[in-house]
């Protein structure tokens, strides 16, 4: 599927056994967290705009195991999976989603604006396409600092049609910035089917127009995703500039929670769900002898407990005090 040369077969980077299990841990964390999120909204205990990431677990899990804590990510409103994979702590994440003072952003950002610089999670934007120009700036700073840090810019297929995508790819390529553009192509831009909104059959082809490598990968295959991310990240670290990765995937629960999916067929949705990457990868790890059923079950139980603890923490936390309404508008506290 490559449009420029990427390592394939035996030459492609392979995750070792521990890394394969770590990828699964992150995928399962995202899956369980998403299930808990939808459950709590349905129960009426929390109200929020929620953009389910169910079905897209592989992409950030296989990318983030190639990242260091000081590498940065920027993502979009459907980005909690990216944040979790990068290491944003569950308690602070859930408290933010619940609008509590103990949240990552003191409850002032909410699920669409999770920010946790200590984990390298710098930006969640609610504006389609806007992760990319800012990711460039973070990458520029890292380059000026002569570090080997990289920045991941996550976005969806719909964002590849907005001006910010084109401006960002041009500047990143021109300046050889250490940034990796990760298009999580879930085949729908809100309600619009890919082919009804995008002029090329593969978004990765657009990379050629900006003089950078571009590749379309199966974003539901942890091994393929890992290998391509590893190569792109290493290239960025070595000063060889940006890469556009188009990771093919599918979102199981529509654009936003409550969406009735009228714009997709039942068949394509059930086919995608039948190919759920989380149980498939789990079975593969066991079949290949990488992990045992007991190991993975213990890991899953541990994640469930962590999520339950985070939800209890969030619900028990206090809302932000009223003075937070005008605090942080400017650096001087309380400036109205």
């Amino acid at each position: 599927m490559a449009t420029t040369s990427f390592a394939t077969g035996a030459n492609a980077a392979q995750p070792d056994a521990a890394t394969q299990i770590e990828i699964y841990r992150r995928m399962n964390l995202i899956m369980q967290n998403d299930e808990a999120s939808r459950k709590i909204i349905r129960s009426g205990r929390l109200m929020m705009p929620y953009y389910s990431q169910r079905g897209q677990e592989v992409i950030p899990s296989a990318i983030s195991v190639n990242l260091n804590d000081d590498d940065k990510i920027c993502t979009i409103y459907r980005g909690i999976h990216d944040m979790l994979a990068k290491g944003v702590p569950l308690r602070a994440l859930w408290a933010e989603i619940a609008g509590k003072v103990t949240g990552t952003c003191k409850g002032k950002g909410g699920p669409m604006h999770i920010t946790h610089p200590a984990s390298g999670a710098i930006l969640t934007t609610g504006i389609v396409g806007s992760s990319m120009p800012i990711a460039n700036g973070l990458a520029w700073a890292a380059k000026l600092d002569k570090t080997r840090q990289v920045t991941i810019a996550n976005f969806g297929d719909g964002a590849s049609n907005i001006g910010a995508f084109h401006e960002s790819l041009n500047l990143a390529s021109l300046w050889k910035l250490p940034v990796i553009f990760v298009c999580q192509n879930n085949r729908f831009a809100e309600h619009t089917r890919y082919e009804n909104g995008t002029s090329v059959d593969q978004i990765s082809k657009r990379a050629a127009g900006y003089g950078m490598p571009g590749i379309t990968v199966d974003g539901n295959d942890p091994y393929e995703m890992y290998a391509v991310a590893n190569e792109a990240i290493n290239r960025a670290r070595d000063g060889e500039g940006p890469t556009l990765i188009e990771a093919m995937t599918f979102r199981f629960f529509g654009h936003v929670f409550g969406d009735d999916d009228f714009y997709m067929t039942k068949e394509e949705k059930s086919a995608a769900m039948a190919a759920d990457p989380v149980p498939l990868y789990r079975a593969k790890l066991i079949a290949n002898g990488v992990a045992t059923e007991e190991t993975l079950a213990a890991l899953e139980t541990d994640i469930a407990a962590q999520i339950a603890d985070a939800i209890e923490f969030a619900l028990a936390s206090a809302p932000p005090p009223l003075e937070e309404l005008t605090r942080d508008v400017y650096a001087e506290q309380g400036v109205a």
Partner: protein
Amino acid sequence: MSAIETKKITIIQAINEAISEAMAADPKVIVLGEDVADREGGGVVGVTRGLSTKYGDERVRSTPITEQAIMGAAIGAAIGGYKVVAEIMLMNFTTVAMDMIVNHAAKLRFMSGGQTGVPIVIRMMTGAGISSGGQHSDFLEAWFAHTPGLKVVLPSNPEDAKGLMLSAIADPDPVIFVECTRAYFTPYETPVNVAPIPLGKAKVTQQGTDVTIISYSEIFLRATAAAAELAKDGISVELIDLRTISPWDRETVIASVKKTGRAVIAHEAVKQFGVGAEIAATLQDELFGQLKAPIKRLGAPFTSVPFSGVLEQAFIVSVADIVAAAKSTLA
């Protein structure tokens, strides 16, 4: 009194000196924008001329014509520890980068609960009167002053431009820095050493007792000329150059109008929903019952900046307009 050493410089040179001094003092100060490096002429009017030669092409970086990417790069680099001076050549060109400026630069500190700040200066020039027509001339400062998280600075002279730029670069938050093209090229005696001028502090350039005239940017120069005209008729004007409109210096303005009882507010932007409306509303709220006349607001008519010279001159608030408005408060 010891004499202060001065030299004649323009606003262009003053801003250049401020950026240069900031870059010399702090290696984290960087510049980007269309044509800002010397290879491209050091800016379309030369504001950044010489800086890339002095500080290197890595710190003074010309960009393509790509306003969203310029602002995104500035925001990201600022979060990454740099103090960024970003040039968006003309104020009208901010419109194509508004998402970056309004949804991101202005809001990230608040939305992140104070975790990410955006210390950038967004420089731009603008102003009618040079035959540039409807898309190269607007004063849009009210949009930015209406946006929490941004600061908005509009100097009228080289000394203020330098001192305010030094503060703007040092400021931890995004600052919109508006330079009026008509005021660019006039040299003024300016102190060789200018200290940073705090943002949000107005300057009372002339004490008076009959009427307060409040203005900023190049229109302030017209207000100053109007005050001289009014003096000939025995009218004592107190003159205030706001210099910063967000935050604006309420205390200085209120104290002055409390003294004079009369106020005229003049700016180049269209009058409707302009900065003058905010100031007038504040004054009536604070000084109801103490005002001796209705507050007068002067601004452009509610229309686009025209091309034809006759129309263009009629668009901009004139010295005569300000004189007439001040006299009307005394009638």
